[in-house]
């Protein structure tokens, strides 16, 4: 479970994240939605321990990431939006490299790498160097390295961004699988249909603040719209609100 309480991050006069609080329970998919510049990535980076919050708290399965960053990171699998891979290493080598950071070694490591490769349907490319891989294949490596240590909590920053239809379907299936496995999934996306299909709970962030949170159905009901995209626009303050948020 990921618990975020009153998270703050300012850059000079700009309040990138201003008192964000929400909880991502186990066995559920929580979506963090918002227009560009709303504070989604900054929030996710603070949860991942990449950025130090100016205030507030992030607990990963009860571990405060500010106080015990190493322990908290062990409980977390992160797929960031900077989804590069090592072109001169094979997917198997890359997953093993990341697995070792989490204390895996020997046969346990080899088994976990093999299981992750199988889970992500990567066995056919497992021993090829990643140079020349398609975006979808690279995305699998990125997901694989976030999962190789079998974390209970998974953070995904726009995981389907730029992927083709087949890769998007595969990634969504994988995210559903995480939920079935009882993991806690927090992900951000720009695709409202994706959020509507996948998420159990959605938090909409605008101008660094959570403006509304609830299930997709509850949000649509609250906005009086029959799809999440319209509900999102309405709840985020309409076209003017979105434009203002992006300008800020």
């Amino acid at each position, binding site marked *: 479970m990921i618990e975020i309480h009153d998270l703050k991050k300012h*850059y000079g006069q700009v309040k990138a994240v201003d008192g964000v609080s929400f909880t991502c329970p186990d066995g559920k998919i929580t979506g963090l939605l918002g227009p560009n510049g709303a504070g989604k990535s900054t929030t996710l980076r603070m949860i*991942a*321990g*990449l*950025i*130090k919050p100016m205030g507030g708290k992030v607990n990963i399965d009860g571990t405060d990431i500010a106080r015990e*960053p*190493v*322990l908290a*990171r*062990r409980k*977390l699998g*992160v797929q*960031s939006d*900077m*989804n*590069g*891979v*090592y*072109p*001169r*290493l094979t997917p198997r*080598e890359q997953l093993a*490299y*990341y697995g*070792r*950071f*989490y204390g895996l*070694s020997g046969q346990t490591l080899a088994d976990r790498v093999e299981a992750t490769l199988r889970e992500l349907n990567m066995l056919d490319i497992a021993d090829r*160097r990643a140079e020349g891989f398609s975006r979808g294949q690279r995305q699998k490596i*990125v997901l694989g*390295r*976030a999962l190789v240590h079998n974390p209970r909590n998974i953070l995904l920053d726009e995981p389907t961004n730029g992927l083709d239809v087949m890769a998007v379907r595969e990634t969504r299936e994988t995210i559903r699988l995480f939920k079935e496995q009882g993991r806690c999934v927090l992900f951000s996306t720009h695709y409202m249909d994706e959020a509507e299909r996948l998420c159990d709970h959605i938090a909409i962030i605008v101008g660094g603040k959570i403006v509304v949170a609830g299930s997709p159905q509850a949000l649509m009901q609250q906005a009086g719209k029959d799809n999440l995209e319209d509900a999102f626009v309405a709840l985020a303050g309409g076209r003017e609100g979105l434009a203002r948020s992006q300008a800020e």
Partner: protein
Amino acid sequence: MHPIINIWRKELMDILRDKKAVRQSLLVPLLIGMIYAVMNPAFSSIASERARAPLSIPAQGIENASEEFMAVLQQYDITLEPYEGDLTAHITSGKEGAGLIIPPGFGENVNGEQAAQITLLTNPTSGGIFGGGFAGGERLDLAINTFNTQVAAARVQSREMDPALLTPVSVDTRNLATPEQLGGVFASFTLPLLVVIIVVQGGLFAAIDVTAGEKERGTLEALLVTPATDVQVMIGKLLAVFTLAVVPYILTLLGFWIAGRLLPESMKLGGDLPFSVIGVAILVGIPTALFMSVIQMAISVRTKTFKDAQAAAAPLSIGALLPAFAAGVVQPQSLLAYLIPVYGPAALVGQMTINGGILDASALGMVIIGSLLAAVIAFVIAMRLFNRERLLYAV
């Protein structure tokens, strides 16, 4: 596996799979060392060969010279070749290093104890540094002086006086340079430069690849969300850079020494560099490589792309050579001067090449302490620069 070892191992495997990196980190230093192994003794012996080789000098008025004069020239292995045309222009053009104009009546004037003048034209720039223009003019000058002395002695003797009157001070010059010292004349200036070039060259690509390269590939964020701490990430990467700076360096110097041993004696000016010089060069090169690796990482860590890092690190390659050049010109005036990174190691290696491999142990100690201290200070600075927020998002 400890995160530091994990990062070190991965970086080495990753970099060594890159042909460009292997070429720049391993092959280029090895090639420089091999070329140097051949060029060092060759350059050292060229001047000596030039001094010993028979000399042919273009001359005008050869028929005016006396037999005695020609005999002295012969003693110095000098032959005069008749030259038609403007000899001054010919020598000025640098085509030859020396020429001689013997005016009419020169032989008769000398024999008749009259004033006799001869014109010696020289151009030391002829043929460049190793062209022999300087050596040619010098030998001809020496031959003429010898002829002068002989004539003067004969004249004094004919007046029943002791020729020793002409030389109140006779100089007994003995060349005490050992073959090792002779072999080290050229190396005393160039070996310290080689040390710095290889140390800088070896780790440069790796330093850029593990920092700016990681950022450019978009893999840095993924690394920083692992349980590895910033210090572990930095040390793991630094060890990889250091390994890629040190291993080629040691191989190059060993190769250089072995190649020097295999060269024919005729190319070596009678001496080899003692192994102690190579040994100390390796010893002082290791902390210097550590210092350079930290500096290279500190520079590259704040850049965003490989190209940016290359541009930022380029002045370092030149800047690192300056203290090594300085060591060839200004010798350390106190033991403390050996603490200066790059300068200290370069000065110590330079001195050892020229004094036949005799080691000043206290200077060696100062060099190692100085380089390690500088590496630690540079590492602390690099860690301050390695701020994950600024590093990732330039805020």
